[in-house]
Structures are given as C-alpha cells and as structure tokens.
C-alpha cells in the first residue's frame, strides 16, 4: 500500500489505517506510538450552509509535493512510516477529506510529525476547494481556517 494516496472515492480512514498497518508493519514490535489526524467535510463555512464540495488539484505537482513532505518528516523525526490520503473531486458533508498519520517509537515524535504533515499540507499542497451552498451558488474557498 502506497504512503501517498489521492482518491476520488470516499474512504474510511480507520479501515485504511488498519490496511496500511497490516501491509507495512506485520511482525514489527518496536512501534510505540501512532498519531492520526482526520479532516472531514463540514456542512457549514463562513456562516453559510454548504451542500457539496469539489476539490481540485494539480496532477503531478500535488503528488510530488506530498512525497517530498513525507520525506522531510522522516528526516526531521525518527519515524517508522507516514501515511497521507487526500480526496479529490466531489465530496459530501461528513466524508473524510484528508488523513495524515505518523508512526514512531514514542508519542512525542509521532504527534509532532503528524501535526507537521497536516499543517504543511494545508498551507502548501496544491489543492483548492470549491463549495456549493444551499442557495445553489458555488464559490471558491479563499483561505483555510487557522490551525
């Protein structure tokens, strides 16, 4: 299972974590910490009800950026592995948009790396959200909320 995944279909983050761990860590006994962030789609933003959302990305650059991000995290913390999954295309409220996870021997490194992955992804990975409101109006999200 790849550690960077972009997908157009809904995914169950907990199921993906289980599959990833089974494919990568079978027989490993030195992992003491798993840190996970899951972002899901809200049905409201900036005071408006949101019906659906579309996520655009830059094919090629987005994957490249995320690959470099994971490598940077592995350089900066002693990690066993990282996993990044991100939806693209049409998304409905309550569906998972993003998952970042980091595995390490100890919690400090895992938690710090997991936070690093999601914050860097939010600030720099080439993704753009367009939301459709109850009124039918579609608008580009101009800025992410502060983490």
């Amino acid at each position, binding site marked *: 299972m790849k550690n960077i995944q972009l997908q157009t279909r809904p995914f169950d983050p907990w199921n993906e974590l289980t599959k990833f761990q089974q494919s990568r860590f079978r027989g490993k006994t030195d992992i003491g910490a798993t840190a996970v962030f899951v*972002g899901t789609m809200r049905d409201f933003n900036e005071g408006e009800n949101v019906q659906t959302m579309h*996520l*655009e*990305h*830059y094919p*090629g*650059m987005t994957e*490249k*950026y995320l690959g470099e991000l994971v490598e940077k995290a592995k350089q900066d913390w002693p990690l066993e592995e990282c996993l990044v999954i*991100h939806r693209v295309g049409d998304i409905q409220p309550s569906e998972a*948009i*993003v998952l970042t996870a980091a595995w390490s021997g100890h919690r400090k490194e895992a938690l710090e790396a997991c936070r690093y992955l*999601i914050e860097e*992804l*939010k*600030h*720099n*990975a*080439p*993704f*753009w*959200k*367009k939301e459709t409101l109850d009124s039918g109006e579609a608008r*580009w*999200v*101009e*800025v*992410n909320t502060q983490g």
Partner: protein
Amino acid sequence: MSITIKYFASLREQMGTAEQTLSVKGVATVADIVVKLSDTNLPENTLVAVNQEYATGSTQVKAGDEIAFFPPVTGG
C-alpha cells in the same frame, strides 16, 4: 521554443483557459512571462510553480518548461 502555462482553480476560471503555450527566446524569468500574458492582471496573491516546484518572479524558465499559476491553496 515554447513553454506551457497552466492555471488552476479560480485563476483558471478568471483566465478562461486551463492551459496555453507561449514562445520564449533564450532565457526569461517568471516575471518576464507574466508581462507577456494577456491583458488580464494576475491577482497579487497568485502563487507560481515552475516544473511543479514552487518558484518566484525571479526564477528562470526556458523552452520546454511548465509554469503554473494558482491562487492560495485550500486543501486538507
């Protein structure tokens, strides 16, 4: 000798195209390319990538390169 220019998200809609090609002679910078683009001014917060790496106005480009312009990112 041409370079490929891509636009994403709101900028793609604003420019009315996802991709165009532009002829360049010799070496140019991203800023030189911006001047050559259509009459439409790019918004001040526009980000740029050259060959799928973040770049700046002074980044040099040459024939065969891919330049992308896009608004601030909002993933995650």
